[in-house]
């Protein structure tokens, strides 16, 4: 694994913890679904943790991200806490969005997360606009726009990349290529080359192993710093994999991908395992250290789930509140 600029032990352990937090969050969310305690469906981020964490560890709190339908990972990585997140997933008043958004619209304004989006590609304009604001207002905040390989089919991406390039906006387009959009392989829905598309608009584009959190983080640190200096926009394609189905209800997947393929990624390419191995082989942490981190996170998650299950729903009088801002 490549060593990034974040080379002190605290930062390493924080990166590990953040990835573990995402995995634990998703395991709990999946459990809530399977036990019929969560309303609706949700899309698991498990397997892609190194992407969200590698990137978000390169960001400041005031930097912005826009997220997707598969958004829990971005939300956790940008600093959200479990309690408000689980409350949101369960439609409770104490959720980040008072239960009105749910999994597909979870946003965390306090940490610069402008929200998940249930329209594939729907946040590409928003991210670019946040970068536009930063430039107009003279802050040096950077915005990262997360989206999937499938979303590269949306014309909006090319419209906003054109403007971001013309106006040199501080935005980074982060394409998480997990090989699938719903039940279809990327190769069947994306002609040519994804990075070449960005390059054709004059945008510097990179491809990186999305399972290698240090590689992702090192690249992100470099590009975020450059974007902050006005050298953006940039494009990153991150090669990764989702372990679960498209959503929690997508159980029989063999008609579109093999169990062997899934096993290969889980066994040989898991970003948390790979990073754990690195930490141990470099003598940064012992297996026990890491176990302790994970155990702490599990407890925190269980407590948050219990809290959220017991928390109250918004009052019915809320139904027509927040349609319009005062």
């Amino acid at each position, binding site marked *: 694994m490549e060593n990034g600029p974040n080379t002190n032990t605290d930062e390493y352990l924080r990166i590990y913890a953040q990835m573990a937090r995402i995995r634990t969050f998703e395991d709990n969310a999946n459990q809530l679904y399977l036990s019929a305690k969560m*309303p*609706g*469906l949700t899309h698991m981020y498990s397997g892609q943790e190194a992407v969200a964490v590698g990137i978000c560890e390169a960001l400041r709190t005031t930097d912005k991200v826009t997220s997707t339908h598969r958004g829990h990972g971005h939300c956790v990585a940008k600093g959200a806490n479990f309690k408000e997140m689980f409350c949101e997933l369960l*439609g*409770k008043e104490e959720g980040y*969005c*008072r*239960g*009105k*958004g*749910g*999994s*597909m*619209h979870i946003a965390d304004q306090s940490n610069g997360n402008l929200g998940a*989006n*249930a*329209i*594939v*590609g*729907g946040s590409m304009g928003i991210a670019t606009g946040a970068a536009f604001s930063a430039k107009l207002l003279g802050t040096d905040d950077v915005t990262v726009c997360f989206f999937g390989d*499938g*979303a590269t*089919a*949306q*014309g909006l991406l090319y419209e906003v990349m054109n403007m971001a390039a013309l106006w040199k906006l501080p935005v980074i387009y982060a394409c998480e290529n997990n090989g699938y*959009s*719903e*039940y*279809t392989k990327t190769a*069947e*829905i*994306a002609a040519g080359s994804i990075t070449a598309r960005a390059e054709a608009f004059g945008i510097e584009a990179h491809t990186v192993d999305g399972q290698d959190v240090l590689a992702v983080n090192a690249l992100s640190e470099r590009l975020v710093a450059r974007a902050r200096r006005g050298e953006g926009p940039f494009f990153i394609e991150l090669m990764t994999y989702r372990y679960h189905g498209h959503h929690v209800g997508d159980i029989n997947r063999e*008609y*579109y991908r093999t169990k062997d393929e899934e096993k290969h990624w889980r066994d040989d390419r898991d970003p948390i395992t790979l990073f754990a191995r690195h930490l141990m082989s470099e003598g940064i942490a012992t297996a026990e250290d890491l176990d302790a981190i994970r155990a702490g996170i599990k407890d925190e998650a269980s407590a948050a789930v219990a809290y959220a299950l017991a928390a109250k*729903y*918004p009052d*019915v009088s*809320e*139904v*027509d509140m927040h*349609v319009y801002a005062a």
Partner: protein
Amino acid sequence: MREITLSQAVNEALAEEMRRDPTVFIIGEDVAEAGTPFKVLSGLVEEFGTHRVVDTPIAEPGFTGIAVGAAMTGTRPVVDLMFGDFLFLIMDQLCNQAAKTHYMSGGKLNVPLVLRTNLGATRRSAAQHSQSLHALVAHIPGLKVALPSSAYEAKGLMKTAIRDNNPVVIFEDKLMYQEKAPVPEGEFLIPFGVANVLREGHDITLIGTSSMVQVCAKAADILAKDGISAEVIDPRTIVPLDEAALVKSAKKTSRVIVVDEGHQSFGVTSEIASRINEKAFYHLDAPALRMGAMDVPVPFSPALEDITVPTPEGVAEAARKLVRGEMIHAA
């Protein structure tokens, strides 16, 4: 009669029409092997091949535009739009292009296209996957709009839509995909613009569309226990609209409630209520009452979502008040 689900009914309609007419094809996201997320199209790609059941990238404006061009040049596309909410992405292709081509060309070009999509909330899918946007489409001349309310209706209306030489938007009710209803074995078509009187009555007329037809039927059951006889009518298509049938019933019962799952304001209930008020005014005891969905984005929280949509109890309660002459507004 055998009973099949709405899903199966749509599937059958498509299969029959694709067998009958080799120019019919299906285009959309995950329509082939996956058979759509709702599994409505399962088996079709096996019978008709990937050239007629065409999986697309996630590019709704693009594949709708392709369907418009295909329809102008000798084929009959059935566009699969996974959620009705995605209509907002394709409005230009649907409303500026498909809807106007026949007119702008002075009648020389046709766009025989079917857009299959859906409506309906209470699935805990939140604001961008729960909308009922049929009123928007109905406002645009050149488009026809069908709202099947059962498996039977879904099959008959789909077959008619495919044979129609105009762009037709069909909204299926997501919550009804697994619901069974009697559907005859053989071929049948349901003509556009002919309302269906589900139940005759003389005290009040309940006009329901799509998901709200059953809500009205259930409300009528409740009312029957109170000795109130409700007539239940399903317009089936809102463009064309069988105004005559609705007005006739209104004149008979002199009280009308219009129930629809789209937002109430600037919605379907306003149009239907206006037509009834215009044409049956002097026969009415009270103005036609609108009951649409609340004018709020659909909230995720179950505690909130369920109260945004009309319910049988709510409709029955309003009907009772109307019959008793207690409508507060009408003061």
